[in-house]
């Protein structure tokens, strides 16, 4: 690697990192607030990507505008998923919940394959398909748009959670459900809405996937692993840490893939994961929290 490549690698890594943070958002919310390990996260994400693809490629809707109806649609999908499945599992053992969501993942994936086959697809980016050139740097506009959107959404979520009473209620719900209902918060309704919001955020991640790279209905498991990586390294309960964790992973992947043979990328990332787990079980966020 020559030094002149470095700025390009850093930019690639940061954009990729933002995108990874976007993949992890929905998982992080549902795990952090509701303590539910949503194994179906990435299947929902890719289902949203396919719907997004239909909107943009088949119906010709603007790729940025299309994100809105997809996110809204999946909010309602999340409400239904909670009413139909998640709510009934509230008192079940963790492993039962895990298994149920694994089942949902397989179901969604199978339906997606039946409808859309296993082909690799690309969202027709139109005006977002251009590559910006500054000096020696090549930057895909679609990835810049994706990164900007993610940072925007992360900021909004952060403000919602830390500056509003509803945000305090959501954090309270995650800390002590009993006391939350004691002060009069309708915990069942709030739980359903948080689950739906997590599903909508997974769909948002799906739109980001469509913007940023080619995809297949079955390739989502890799993004599930990546999303878990981000959540574990970043810890839960802080969206800004989610962004930092995404950036760390994106930059590592981008730089390692040039310095070392490709297969080492996974090795290094999982080494980082192991270190993060050793340092503190709640992720790096826990460390900075303690330092405050």
């Amino acid at each position, binding site marked *: 690697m020559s030094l002149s490549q470095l700025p390009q690698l850093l930019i690639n890594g940061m954009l990729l990192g933002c995108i990874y943070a976007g993949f992890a958002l929905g998982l992080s919310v549902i795990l952090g607030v509701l303590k539910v390990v949503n194994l179906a996260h990435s299947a929902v994400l890719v289902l949203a990507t396919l719907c997004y693809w239909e909107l943009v490629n088949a119906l010709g809707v603007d790729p940025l505008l299309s994100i809105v109806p997809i996110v809204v649609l999946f909010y309602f999908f999340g409400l239904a998923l909670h009413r139909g499945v998640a709510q009934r599992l509230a008192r079940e053992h963790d492993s039962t919940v895990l298994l149920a969501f694994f089942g949902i993942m397989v179901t969604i994936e199978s339906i997606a394959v039946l409808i859309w086959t296993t082909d690799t697809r690309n969202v027709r980016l139109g005006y977002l398909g251009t590559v910006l050139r500054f000096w020696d740097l090549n930057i895909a506009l679609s990835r810049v748009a994706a990164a900007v959107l993610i940072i925007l959404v992360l900021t909004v979520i952060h403000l919602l959670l830390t500056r509003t009473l509803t945000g305090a209620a959501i954090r309270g719900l995650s*800390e*002590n459900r009993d006391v939350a209902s*004691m*002060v*009069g918060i309708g915990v069942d309704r709030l739980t359903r809405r948080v689950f739906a919001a997590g599903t909508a955020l997974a769909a948002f991640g799906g739109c980001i996937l469509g913007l940023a790279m080619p995809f297949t209905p079955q390739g989502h498991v890799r993004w599930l692993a990546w999303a878990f990586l981000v959540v574990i390294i970043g810890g839960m309960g802080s969206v800004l840490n989610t962004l930092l964790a995404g950036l760390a992973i994106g930059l590592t992947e981008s730089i390692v893939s040039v310095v070392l043979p490709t297969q080492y990328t996974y090795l290094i990332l999982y080494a980082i994961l192991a270190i993060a787990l050793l340092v503190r079980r709640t992720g790096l966020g826990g460390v900075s929290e303690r330092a405050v």
Partner: protein
Amino acid sequence: MTRAATATQVLRMDRVTAGYYANDTVLDQVSLEARPGRVTVVLGPNGSGKSTSLRVLSGFLNARSGRTMLGSEGIDGLPPGERLARGIALLPQGRSVFPGLTVEENLRLGAWMLRKSPQRLQAAVDAMYDRYPVLRPLRSRPAGSLSGGQARLLEFGRTLILEPSVLLIDEPSVGLAPVLVDQVYDEIARLRDEGRTILLVDQNVQAAIDMADYVYTLAYGRNHLQGERSQFADELDSLIKQWLNL
């Protein structure tokens, strides 16, 4: 002292039978009554149904049979939030602050029922800082970093922020340093002097009887004894011996 217009009322449960699972009976035909401006104490050995009574009265557990009443109004089946709106608040056993939230956020969540009117909510929070001035400089600290005594005050503040007329208090002194225990009972005396209805469940028998106006004892989920405090002051020793032999 600013007091909301919630009229203080008698809280009553009448021959309530309740349990957590279909085939267990924690409370068997238990009747209790708590009056305004008085401390009513419920005593009994572990597992006699004291905390369960409070859970029924605060709406966390539905009675299988029997009635719960506030004044002349039946409150059976009302969820905790509805009872809070009617002026019944529960101060649960053990730590009940949200540790990751700031002191201010804890208080604001205590006033969650006022969320539609931000001014009243803010006024309620400010009133609690006036009541417990210790909390004011701590407002942006996470509640998890407070000392045991500070956290207990925050719990009182969160419970009182809606100016409830009825307070259900579960084991208020458990886990507190001895110097703080007196402060807790002083605070309960102050709440009584404000005219609130107080139902106190306590393992600290001596302290509870000292401040009680009326005492109930439960055993095996049934009413055992009841009467004015004066009747119990002498019986205390034999009572405790009796429980140990139960």
